[in-house]
């Protein structure tokens, strides 16, 4: 076609990247709200700091390099907010901001911007903070403790259910507390109910499909049931699924478009592998939690998974045979 006429299709569904990101931000408000209720106003400020830092970093990157301004697509805001949800409310603001800037500039922009990054920016930002400031990331304030809004936070670290499970022992917290999130932990990770509300919104809006989260959660459930370390395998399994970052990661990290596979078979393998790695890292690793590294490792495998598991070619596999 030499003539520069518009190509079909001539109508569009109306979907857009910024609308999708807006939906994700709306969904993330549920776990954020739970975090603010459980850990106080400091949780909200941490979220504002990381989000603002992420947005500013991307805006500045585009401005300095004279690139098309992409900050309006909303993905930087999502990265910032997601990072905050994986941090304890007591984290120093500057550290949180640093993680955010790293996530956006190094993990996303340096790889070529939205869609080109290999690793989930928020989780990579968290991984950096765990490397640089381990003491800030593994000390958790007890729910309801009055965290100062400014200045250094000098907290008496409270034990989280996941810490108890390293013993190994079933945590003191009740399953109801695990569901509601009135336990020690990261801002957006403790309340399973809030995460599920956000996830339900994304499912209804068609932003995510349940394939990866269910494969992930199912694998964690089966493995912790089979390789139970508690007196009651079912209880051990429930605490394993509800404790730590599994729920948030399953619905909001493993479903990150850019860093997860696009084909159904690859998505299932991806979810199962993250689940297996999570349990493995929890049981054997230095930290009580293994979600971050499990997801990041599988991020690196996405291209290989998609190559190894293509879709069935139309008409292949005997379907062309006469009925």
């Amino acid at each position, binding site marked *: 076609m030499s003539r520069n006429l*518009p*190509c*079909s299709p*001539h109508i569009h569904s109306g979907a857009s*990247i910024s609308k999708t990101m807006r939906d994700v931000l709306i969904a993330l408000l549920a776990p954020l709200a739970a975090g603010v209720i459980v850990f106080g106003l400091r949780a909200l400020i941490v979220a504002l700091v990381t989000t603002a830092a992420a947005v500013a970093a991307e805006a500045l990157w585009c401005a300095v390099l004279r690139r098309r301004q992409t900050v309006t697509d909303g993905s930087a805001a999502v990265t910032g907010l997601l990072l905050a949800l994986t941090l304890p409310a007591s984290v120093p603001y500057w550290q949180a901001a640093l993680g955010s800037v790293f996530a956006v500039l190094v993990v996303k922009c340096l790889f070529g911007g939205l869609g080109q990054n290999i690793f989930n920016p928020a989780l990579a930002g968290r991984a950096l903070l765990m490397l640089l400031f381990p003491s800030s990331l593994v000390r958790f304030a007890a729910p309801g403790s009055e965290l100062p809004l400014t200045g250094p936070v000098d907290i008496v670290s409270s034990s989280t259910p996941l810490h108890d499970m390293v013993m190994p022992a079933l945590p003191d917290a009740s399953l109801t507390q695990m569901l509601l999130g009135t336990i020690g932990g990261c801002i957006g990770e403790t309340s399973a109910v809030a995460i599920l509300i956000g996830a339900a919104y994304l499912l209804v809006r068609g932003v995510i499909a349940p394939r990866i989260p269910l494969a992930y959660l199912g694998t964690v459930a089966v493995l912790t049931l089979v390789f139970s370390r508690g007196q009651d395998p079912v209880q051990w399994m429930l605490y394993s699924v509800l404790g730590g970052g599994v729920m948030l990661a399953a619905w909001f990290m493993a479903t990150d*478009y850019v860093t997860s596979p696009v084909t159904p078979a690859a998505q299932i393998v991806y979810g199962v592998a993250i689940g297996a790695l999570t349990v493995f890292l929890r049981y054997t690793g230095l930290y009580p939690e293994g979600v971050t590294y499990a997801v990041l490792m599988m991020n690196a495998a996405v291209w290989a998974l998609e190559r190894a598991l293509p*879709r069935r*070619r139309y008409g292949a596999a005997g379907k062309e045979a*006469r009925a």
Partner: protein
Amino acid sequence: MRKLFYGGVHPDARKELAPPDSVHAVAPPALAVVPLRQHIGQACRPLVKPGDAVRKGQRVGDGEGLCVPVHAPVSGIVREIAEYPHATLGRCEAIVIENDGRETPADTEPHGDPSSLTPSELEERIRLAGVAGMGGATFSTAVKLASAAGAVDTLIVNACECEPYITADDALLCTQPELVVRGAQMLSASVGAKRTVIAIEDNKVRAAEAVRAVLPSGMELKILPTRYPQGAEKQLIQAVTGREAAAGKLPRDVGCAVFNAATCAASVRAAFDGEPLIERIVTVSGEGVKHPGNYLVRIGTPIADVLAAAGGLADDGVRVLAGGPMMGFAVDDFGAPVTKGVNAVTCLPRKTAAQLDGTVCFRCGRCVAACPMHLRPLYFFRGERCGDAAMLEHDHVCDCIECGCCAYACPGHLPLVRAIRAGKQLVKECAVP
């Protein structure tokens, strides 16, 4: 709802703009432009020369093989044979006939009941009448019949019309259901099919009722849940029979023959009355045209005349398409005539017409979920941009039927169909000769 084929999308149908219950005749054009290529395959050779007097329905161009003859839609004088704008090809050699307004008919051979004809005699009648697939593909109906004869067990009449806005086949079924049914019977008998199915989507209630009222015993009326691209040949075969015709395979390879509803009607006219294909129903619709509706248009009528008959365009910003919004071709020269495959002229105002100028893919996978051919369109976008023919071929870019579902669903507004066409070209160029 059970999915009868994979993927697909649900665009807003907007069929109410052009109701199917009436068809308005458009006056024969003062100047008819008859392109020598209105079908897939080689162009016709002109059988007339400038200055010749022609009669309405006279064969004026023909050729061999897949070639389908063309006929004079009006009586008059051949003014010139020259390159003219063409809705889908850009430009094409055409016979231009000055209408004398007398409508002098060509001599037609007496045609009786075609049931006494052998299949090859029937094919010749259909070929001589210039019948080609009227759903848009414009493949020679006679050649299709010949290849299907004895090789198929199921004949499907495609009355899905899954593209938004278009109601031309719907109008044909509402106004002349018996013609389509007779065509289906005739073609089915000719190819020796055991099962004859008229497939229609569930949003065409009146057409379905009209067909049911004249449905002979032994013929099925299949109402399919509305979803685009159900009317695509492979997807329709799958929806009706569950069989998948792989890329490069023909419907006959899975025991099916598919004919568009308008093609069935044209075949009956050809076989019974010796009437050549010189007019068709065209849906002129969209928010950008003043009087949307169904119009009976002579083949060769410039799109400008058709638009004028429909009250003209709302403003200068309207995008005019030959065909529907999902697979139609944008037309910038309204001197291009209506051809056998043009089932619609869709007029989209600037605000409705999609601007597919995105550059960012964030791998949401909606293109993968929407693709009825099990492809991964996002790979084609990347592969075409990198000039990676090996990757494009490995991911079967040539299996794509260009239905446009991927680009319709893409939040990044990526021009996926454009990339895929360029990608196919790249694969062709890189193939070892």
